[in-house]
Structures are given as C-alpha cells and as structure tokens.
C-alpha cells in the first residue's frame, strides 16, 4: 500500500570541466511515497538542484556524467530510459516547478498555450478540451478570470501569479510526482505562504508525491513529512520531520537548526552560525566533507568518510559520532539527548504495538 513511487539509490552525478570531473552528487539515496512530501534541504551548492534535475534528466548531456546509481520510478530505472521514454514521463508522471517564475515562462507565448502544450503532448484531448482543461487549471491555482487570462502573456502577470501558472503547467497532466525546486525562494513572504498552501491543497486533491527542494527550514517545517539534509553532494541525515527538527543526530543538521531564528527565544540570544564555508567539490578529500567545520571532529573524520547509519526505521545519519567505537564521553550532550528520546520514542512505539 505505502509503496515507494520513486527510489533514488546511490546516485552519483559529476560535471565534466576543464580540470576533470567534479562530483556534484555523491551517493545520494532516498525514496518517495505516494502523496508524501520529502524536503531536501541544504545550502547552495550542496547538490539539491542537481539531484532534482537528474531525476528529470534535465541536466545538459554534454557535460554531465552519472557514473553510478539508479533512479527507479514505479520500479523502472529511469537512467536506462531512451529519450522518447523519458520525454513521455516528463510532464505527465513527473513534473517540475522551478525557482524563478520570472524566467521560467516563455515570454512570447500566451500562457494558455504554454499550459496546453503539455496536455497535447501527453493526452488525447482535442484542442478545445485542452483549452478547457487549461482554464480549469488556472482556476484551480486561483487565477481570476481564467478564460481571458489564457490569452495573456507572462509579462502581464505578477511574480506570484506566474508561479501559480508554472504550478498549473506542472500539474496539468495530474503527475504522480511534483519536484519543486525552491518554488518560493523568489517570492515575497505572503505570496510564499499562498503558494505553499496551494501546493498542499493540490497535493491532497491529487495525491501527488512532492519533492520540495529548499534552504528555508521554515518552509520545511510547514510542508514536509520527511526531510533529507544534503551537504557537499551527500545526504548527511534523513528522517521524519520530527526526527530532524527535534532529534537531529548530525552536527550539520544541528548547526542548521541553531542558525535559524526562533520567535520564542529572547532577543539577546544570538544566532549561532556554522563557521567556515562548504568545501570545494573539486577538491574533496577522503574524509567527512563536514570535518573542517564540525565542532566535534575526531581524527577519523579527516581520513575516512562515514557511511550511513540507521538510527531508527526512518532516520539515517552519516557521522562517526554514531559509530559504536566512538567513546561515549566524546559524544556531545545534544546528540546524546536526541538519541535517548529516539530510543524512548521507539520504546513507546513498541509499547503501543505490544
């Protein structure tokens, strides 16, 4: 019943440059269930967008290499698809919403036509029916006077309206998966809330699985069922929303949460930034990519990159602190505490089932 519709396993993506291949995504694995929202968070350059685009195979072919990994959609490996097969999946089964609504619509094409394009590609609708459907989509995303607006050009819409149009295009063919790549980053806060609400409502109606890519933890808290935290091309931690927000086990996740402003905290309490900056992807060593910025570094961190350790059924972390050989006195209190409450939660769950 709760089957995964998308399974990404050990995905590697590199870009060819003059100085050799630069890895952008290094062994990413995650899955998505029907109707579920998975948030992928991380700072710029952590490989979020590349991961998303590689699912749709929208990366430029000439300089992208995917040396390893599988992307299974309903059990079929999409990386082995022919051009034709991937084109028939794009826009109909899996759709994408991009970051900047100001540039993601064709400026010289009426928006009705831009919505209808996907429909006439993937459905048997007549032109008239497609137009009707396009009108319904505009109505659905809350654009007033949809009939007349079909014949308007993108420049006649505001940013928020354009993002609604982009969402209408993405959802026109009832996709099973919607990949939203920072869909609200370019919008102001009130519009952000509207767009997010819209996406949630549509998700409920159509039972769409959403992959939400963002660096905004507020958006994550609002939208996500599960969260994957990316750093330097790896998923360093993933888990349910509660696990990531209340029981983070990776020092990077912990750092991200601490650097987020909190309304309840007193003003005098400063935000704690993560010192340093992400590593250069072309100069990654063999160690943990976060080691240079991590407050709890051990010797092993600089030499060996930790593998993913499952902490609960849903939570997995890549960090040497999770290794059983790590002396308990070295594990910081925050992480210990998180682990204890995970165990308690597990015990509780067991108690319920028993």
């Amino acid at each position, binding site marked *: 019943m709760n089957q995964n519709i998308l399974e990404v396993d050990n995905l590697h993506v590199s870009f060819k440059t003059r100085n050799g291949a630069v890895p952008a995504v290094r062994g990413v694995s995650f899955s998505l269930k029907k109707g579920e929202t998975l948030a992928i968070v991380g700072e710029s350059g952590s490989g979020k967008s590349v991961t998303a685009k590689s699912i*749709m195979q*929208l990366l430029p072919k*000439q300089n992208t290499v995917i040396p390893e990994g599988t992307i299974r959609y309903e059990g079929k490996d999409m990386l082995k698809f022919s*051009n*034709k097969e991937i*084109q*028939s*999946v*794009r*826009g*109909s089964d899996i*759709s*994408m919403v*991009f970051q*900047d609504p100001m*540039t*993601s*619509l*064709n*400026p*010289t*094409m009426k928006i009705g036509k831009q919505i209808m*394009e*996907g429909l006439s*590609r*993937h459905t048997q609708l007549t032109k008239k029916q497609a137009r009707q459907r396009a009108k319904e989509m505009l109505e659905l995303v809350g654009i007033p006077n949809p009939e007349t607006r079909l014949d308007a*050009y993108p*420049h*006649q819409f505001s940013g928020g309206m354009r993002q609604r149009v*982009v969402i209408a*295009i*993405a959802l026109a063919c009832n996709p099973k998966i919607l990949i939203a790549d920072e869909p609200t980053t370019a919008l102001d806060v009130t519009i952000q809330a509207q767009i997010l609400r819209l996406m949630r409502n549509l998700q409920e109606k159509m039972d769409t699985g959403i992959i939400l890519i963002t660096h905004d933890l507020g958006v994550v808290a609002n939208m996500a069922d599960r969260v994957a935290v990316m750093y330097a091309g790896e998923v360093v931690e993933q888990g349910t929303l509660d696990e990531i927000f209340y029981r983070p086990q990776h020092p990077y996740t912990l750092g991200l949460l601490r650097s987020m402003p909190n309304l309840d905290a007193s003003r005098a309490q400063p935000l704690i930034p993560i010192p340093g900056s992400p590593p250069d992807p072309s100069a990654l060593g063999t160690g943990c990519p976060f080691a240079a910025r991590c407050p709890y570094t051990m010797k092993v961190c600089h030499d060996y990159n930790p593998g993913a350790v499952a902490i609960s059924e849903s939570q997995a972390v890549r960090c040497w602190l999770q290794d059983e050989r790590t002396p308990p006195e070295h594990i910081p209190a925050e992480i210990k505490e998180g682990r204890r409450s995970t165990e308690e939660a597990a015990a509780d769950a067991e108690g319920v089932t028993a």
Partner: protein
Amino acid sequence: MKSYLLKRFLYSVITLFIIVSATFLLMQLLPGTPYSNAEKLTESQRAILDAKYGLDKPVAVQYITYIGNLLQGDLGYSFQYQGRTVMSMIGDRVGPSAFIGLQGLVFGTIIGLILGIVSALRHNTWLDYTSVTLAVLGMSIPSFVFAALMQYYIGVKLGWLPVALWENYWSTIMPSLALSVTVTATVARFIRSEMLEVLGQDYVTTARAKGLNESGVIWKHVIRNALIPVVTMLGPLAVSIMTGTLVIEKIFGVPGLGEQFTLSILVLDYSVIMGITLFYSALFIAVVFIVDVLYGFLDPRIDLKGGSQA
C-alpha cells in the same frame, strides 16, 4: 499606437530635412562645375548657363529654391541629360538595384539563419567552428573581393553564371550573392549568440520538463525567441546592402541606381546627387521604421501604445 506612428513620422521628416540640408551644403564645397565641357566654355557662356540653372545666385537662395521645389515634389532636372527629370531617372534605374538588393537580403538571411542555427545547436563542434570561421571571413572581407573571385571562378573558369551585364535572371545571381556575404555573416553570428542565450534560459528547461521532444523545444521555444532580436538587425543590414550596391553594380555592370549615383558624383550632377541621396535616406528611414513596428508585433512585451507599464 496612432500617436506613436505620427510621432515617428514627424521625426522621419525632420531627419530627412537635416540630411537634405547637409548634403546640399557639402555638395557646394566640391570643386568644379556640372558642365562636362567646362574648359571649352567662355566666360560669358558660363554666365548664361549659370543663370539658366540658377547657379549665379547665392547658396542661400539656391537652397531655399531647392527646398521650395522639393516641398512640391519636384526634384529638378539633370544637368547631364538634357530635359530629363531626376524623378524619371531614379524611376528608370531603381528596378535592377531593388531586385539584386532584395534578393541579396533574402539569400543572406536564409543562409545566415541556417549557418547560425546549426552552429548553435552543434555548439563547440567542428560544424560550429567552421561556420563561425566563415562568418568572420564574411564580415572582414569586403564584398567586392568576393565579387571579383566569383566572377573569375564561377563566371570565367566554370562558366556557370554570366560574368557581368544585365541580361536575364542568371545575371542577377552573382551580384546578389556578393551583396549577401555581409548579411549572411552578420545574421549567422547574431542568431548563433541569440540561440545560445535562449538555450540557457529557464523557460527552455520548463519546455523540456513538459515532455516536449527536442525539435518541439527548438522550434517553438528557442528559434522564435532567438529570431525576434534578429529582426532589428534587418534594418541596418538593408542599409549595408544599399551602400553595397554602389560598388557591386559597378563591378557587374548592373544598370542600377548605385551606378547612376557614382556617375552623378563624378560629373557633379547636383540635382541627381541630391535626388538619389534623398531617395536612399528616405528608404533607410522607412526600413528602420518598418522594423520597429514589426518588432512590436513580434514581441508581445513591446507596447507601441507607450505610457502603460507592463
């Protein structure tokens, strides 16, 4: 829209007036007389001729007379050809020029578009490098060099096309091709860079994400958007063709306006120089004007009504 057109029309008239005045005054600075047998003329004969054509009056008076006639649509008579009006001379000569000019523009645009689009789609391959090299050659080598080369190889050696003269359709091809070289090169370079820019735009990714096939993406989204700025180039290109005809017509012996123009300057046929200059200027202004209006139709973001901000 109407007020925009009216405004543009008024500007055009002012521009023409300035051109006429400047040409008239500059022409007076040229040494010599318009009479072909000037050295044989006696002092008194010259005085009679000068009086007949009004050349004895001060420049200011001549200027005012000319402008007055011009406003009535009278371009005057030729000094060289007895009793022929400048208007009729332009009318007789404009046909061949317009034909090779337009044909050259069409040849150049089509070949240029093909070269540019192919090289953008095959970016950084040998096809791209070849067409860029061709384009640079086309830009930098003057058209008369191509004209001479074509005459020698295609005309004399291979004998495929007539070397010169104005006989049948075949005689128009080489002049048009020679004229089209600059156009081809400019259009190719321009559409190539426009295409590369559009190919990197987010909306092209959106189009791909809809599941359109690659040719659909290229035709409906990339080429259309890349073509719009190319239209603006057509104005200046048409002008470069016009100036090109001056030389090319001479080389191929085309009985066109350009040939007449060069001739009239050599013999100081004042009224013909003025008339043809005026004609070329008006044509140029009209082309630029048409291109601007066309742009408004092609690009929905350009609003010719003015005022209202999108």
